[in-house]
């Protein structure tokens, strides 16, 4: 399982996919989120490691 942090909540999801696939599976537009692993930005093509953790950051600001 991969632990996903997004907007203050935590989601567990089966691993073995790319960051882009993860975003899509959560219904997120890859244009509007970035992924960070261990404090480092990772590209959407990165393959997640099972039992890893990832933080998704929304990049859209409004107002």
């Amino acid at each position, binding site marked *: 399982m991969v632990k996903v942090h997004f907007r203050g909540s935590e989601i567990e999801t089966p691993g073995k996919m790319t960051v882009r696939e993860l975003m899509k599976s959560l219904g997120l537009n890859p*244009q509007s989120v*970035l992924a960070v692993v261990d404090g*480092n930005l990772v590209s959407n*093509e990165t393959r997640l490691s099972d039992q890893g953790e990832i933080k998704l950051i929304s*990049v859209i600001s*409004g107002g």
Partner: protein
Amino acid sequence: MGVHRCRKCAAQSVIYMPQHRLALCAEHFLAWVEKSTLDFIAKHHMFEPLDRVLVAVSGGKDSLSLWRILLKSGFQADGLYIDLGIDAGGAYSKRSGEYVRKFWRTFAPESQLHVLDLASLYGKTVPEMAGRRAGGRKKLCSICGLVKRHEMNRVARELGYQVMVTGHNLDDEAAVLFGNTLRWDVEYLLRQAPVLPAEESGLAGKAKPLARFYERETAAYAIVSNIDYIEDECPFSKGATSLRHKEVLNSMENGSPGTKLQFYHSFLRARKKGIFPGYERPVLQACPKCAQATGIPGLCAFCRLTTDAEKSIGEEIL
């Protein structure tokens, strides 16, 4: 799709930008953003190396990244933080101000940070100026925008800055353009530009050096630079039209990369060629109280707002 390698050094990339078909590692991404910003500043004659620049900082990713880029590039850039007094149960303005101060201590200790607290200056926060019962979020945001514009102008002029810069990115600009185009609001369309030169009528020069970057890239710049910024939005931005426009544009972008870029750049080109010929800008006059340019006779909207504190002002003015 395999992992993209950095185009410059073939190391593993941290970002791929489909609209440029460009993948870069952390180091080369920072260099690319910084160089592109300098090129954009020069191309639009935003300001010169010796100008004093005032950066309007909100605590968000865009404005803090902008300040960082300008300082790294050797500009004399100071910060201006306007405390709007927005709380809404989450101490939003207070927390934003803390991010700004943290940035200042970490990345800009040699620069000045001007902090302007509306409540102590004018006796009212932005939500209070908008009035408690009066008119909802839309009106609050237009009063907020009015106050920010006025105060940035005032500080820039009083303290002798040549230019005032904001962190608007391409998504911000494209969303505004989208809205203006849906309404065919010619006056706004003609005024939308990455740079507005100083006018005699009491307005400081204004520039948006990040207007060529997608929001994703300014956020990536902040993350890669280890800039701590406020991730959550102003509580009043929920449901804003501009956010919906951004979503629409992003879903188009997802299907065909480069859509936003092209939309904005084609507009700038058309604007330069003189779209809407024969249309004349309204004549501006100086406000008798604050001397800033205004399109209406008598006191400007800001002075009416702050002078006539008792009334629920927004109604007639905005």
